[in-house]
């Protein structure tokens, strides 16, 4: 029990340090701007008085450490000030765009799980045989297609063949949930395809490794059928190693969503991000970047804890590797 507590404490401490580092990286990325930030925002036509006023307003005249600390305080209390281009609080802007980006990532994660698990199980039943070959070739090719290219091509195909215009269509989930899912389905598919291939490949390899393990032979010698062994022993064991891979997949799906939103013209965080970049709206930009990264920190943390719960070998004797 004591070991559990120290483990959780040390993990939480690590979580805090990572969050701090992430905030530092985000802040640093915006502080390395060569020249005057206020001038960059306002453009060359602004008068020196306007620039000075903005500098004062954004606190640019304060020392760097002070600016970081006040920014950090804002970041953790959810108050990152006003967006310079939208004239709205950064946090409310971000919240208003969340349904699209999170919906897209979540839907694509579902697609990844629903497609990669069955195909990996079928594929690893008879490695090298027909179905394995089919799935593997599909996997190889789809791994190589960038999500935004797939989006463009599927937009082309959908509009030419089915007369389905996916671009720019969106319904808010509170208004029409069915329509919301319907609009996000094609974008989610485009985000998911390469990651389906990645998960499939990882899962297949993991299942095959587990399959060659001795405990499978033990269970076989006890008279268990292949299917029972697959669900009772092989899948739980490979899940342990897949958890980490899935957390990385989730991060990639989120990254992919940001870009695919742009192709489908969906009002999500990705669009907001590009708009913020275009208008050099640094408060908004830093808010989006920090909150997305902070969310991933928590996802990785959750994955690590989950893995620890699943695998008794990780629970004890941590650090005693010698």
């Amino acid at each position, binding site marked *: 029990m004591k070991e559990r507590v120290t483990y959780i404490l040390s993990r939480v401490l690590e979580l805090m340090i990572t969050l701090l580092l992430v905030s530092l990286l985000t802040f640093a990325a915006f502080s390395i701007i060569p020249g005057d930030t206020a001038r960059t925002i306002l453009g060359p036509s602004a008068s020196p008085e306007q620039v000075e006023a903005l500098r004062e307003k954004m606190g640019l005249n304060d020392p760097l450490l002070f600016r970081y600390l006040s920014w950090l305080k804002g970041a953790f209390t959810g108050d990152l000030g006003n967006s310079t281009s939208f004239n709205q609080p950064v946090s409310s802007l971000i919240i208003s765009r969340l349904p699209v980006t999170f919906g897209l990532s979540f839907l694509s994660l579902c697609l990844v799980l629903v497609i990669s698990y069955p195909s990996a199980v079928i594929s690893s039943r008879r490695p090298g045989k027909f179905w394995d070959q089919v799935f593997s070739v599909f996997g190889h090719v789809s791994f190589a297609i960038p999500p935004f290219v797939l989006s463009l091509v599927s937009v082309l195909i959908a509009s030419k063949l089915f007369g389905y215009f996916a671009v720019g269509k969106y319904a808010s989930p509170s208004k029409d949930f069915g329509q919301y899912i319907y609009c996000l389905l094609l974008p989610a598919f485009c985000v998911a395809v390469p990651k389906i291939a990645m998960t499939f490949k990882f899962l297949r390899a993991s299942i095959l490794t587990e399959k060659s393990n001795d*405990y499978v032979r033990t269970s076989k*010698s006890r*008279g268990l059928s292949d299917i029972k062994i697959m669900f009772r022993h092989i899948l739980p064991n490979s899940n342990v190693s897949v958890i980490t891979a899935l957390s990385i997949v989730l991060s990639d799906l989120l990254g992919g969503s940001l870009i695919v939103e742009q192709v489908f013209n969906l009002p999500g965080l990705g669009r907001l991000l590009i708009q913020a970049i275009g208008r050099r709206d640094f408060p908004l930009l830093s808010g989006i970047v920090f909150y997305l990264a902070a969310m991933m920190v928590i996802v990785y943390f959750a994955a690590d804890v989950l893995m620890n719960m699943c695998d008794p070998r990780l629970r004890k004797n941590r650090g005693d590797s010698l």
Partner: protein
Amino acid sequence: MSYSKYILQVKDLSLDFGSESTKTLHDISFDLRKGEILGLIGNSGCGKTMTALSVSRLLPKDARLTSGSIVFDGKELMDHTEKDMRELRGKDIAMIFQEPYTALDPLKTVFKNLEEVLTEHEVLTKDERRSRILNMLKRVGFDEAEDILGRYPHELSGGQRQRVLIAGACLLKPKLMIADEPTSSLDTITSMSILELIKSLCAEFMMSVLFISHDLSIVGGFCDRVLVIEKGRIVDSGNAFDLLYNPKNPYTAGLLSDSRLDPKSLDLKFNKPSFSSECSLRVKGLSAGYESTHGFRKKKKDIIHDISFKILNGESVGLIGSSGCGKTTLTRAICGLLKPTSGTITDTKGKLGVVFQDPVMCLNPAHTIRWHLNEPLKANKIKLTKEELNKTIRESLEAVGLEKDILGRYPSQLSGGQRQRIAIAMCLMINPNLIIADEPLSALDTTSGARILKLLAKINTERNTSILLISHNLRVIRAATSYVIVMDQGRIVEDGPTLNVLSNPQSEITKKLLLAETTLHRNPDKGQFMTE
């Protein structure tokens, strides 16, 4: 169904992997009586495992049984479907395997691991399953069976895991147990107790055992009858006594002499140093251990405590102990890889050579042999002219009996024995006072092992180099050392001249090791053969 005294009758069994050229088993025929232990002996790749797997039909996917019949308990197994076979497996035919470390599902407790045998073949309540498993765990020697039930496999030792597996195999009192090298990865003492356990269970349940092993010498006291297999054919068979005392077949005789490391036939001569000579190594009151992190605190735990001994110039000293006794920690401390907590190590001349156990890992795969031989000089900042260098390399190679053309090769192109020699040659490059050899034989086959031992003897006598030989094999220690130190649980429990210690052991651990050694390799009694 008529009564038969045989539980298993295999006739003209042939097996291949898809074509005639891949034929692995040729017309294997044998019978196994009820309650009998039958040994199936042969070198790796001879087909002994395939024979056993054919019986339980757990063959690899591409293997085909081309002909023959397998009659188990009066029923022809060749006609059985996979579903019929599944019903037999675990219930009537149980199996245990070589590697107990990985044979249990690591995510499930012992109870969950064993429970599936019962859920698969019988309808029982959870409490009934629990009590059956508890009883069986007690039977295989767990005094605190309740505690074992809730443990995870990684919390058990190798011997404990093998016991758990045996308990699982015996839960339904099978008629036949197939044991595939069940003791090969266990140490001597544990092996002995596992074999004893199988033997007693066999008598208690009237169970027959098909015992597969590569070591002919250990089956002597264990099996009733023995079959010797070579290249997929049975070349010799008979009761264990006849086969071991009077091997008629030359192949059997060869196997037998390979597995008995006979010191006399090796013609080993080691230095007998006088007691007045100087020490090449003196260890005084040494304690050492590793640091481990618990949360935020660091703890240092000593593995070895208060070790004192000395090695005289030109002396050959043995270090005995079972696994986990602290041998490795001691070596590391002597080599300076580990900072001692207390105590001193006086390495009077400072020149030390080390030979490790695993010849695969001892050389760097990215570099040639010439580079390897040069490295000790570079590390010691010894600058030689090209001629001197070539001379030293030639001498070292000659000393270990290798040709010059080996210099340009990479480690992957050498055999295990050759690599071990290169490791010794690397030591010789700096002309050390002491060579520490950590289980140098255990990863080699018997012939190469004997050669390495001879080589160490030659270096010892010709160069007057001291040797510290670490081994758990008492026969090696007996053959190659004049003085011996016995370690147990991080302390020296006994030391003295080798012959004295081994003929008149004082400490518990030495007695145990000796007993296990003799029991494992004991000769069969004539009267042991089962009669009905």
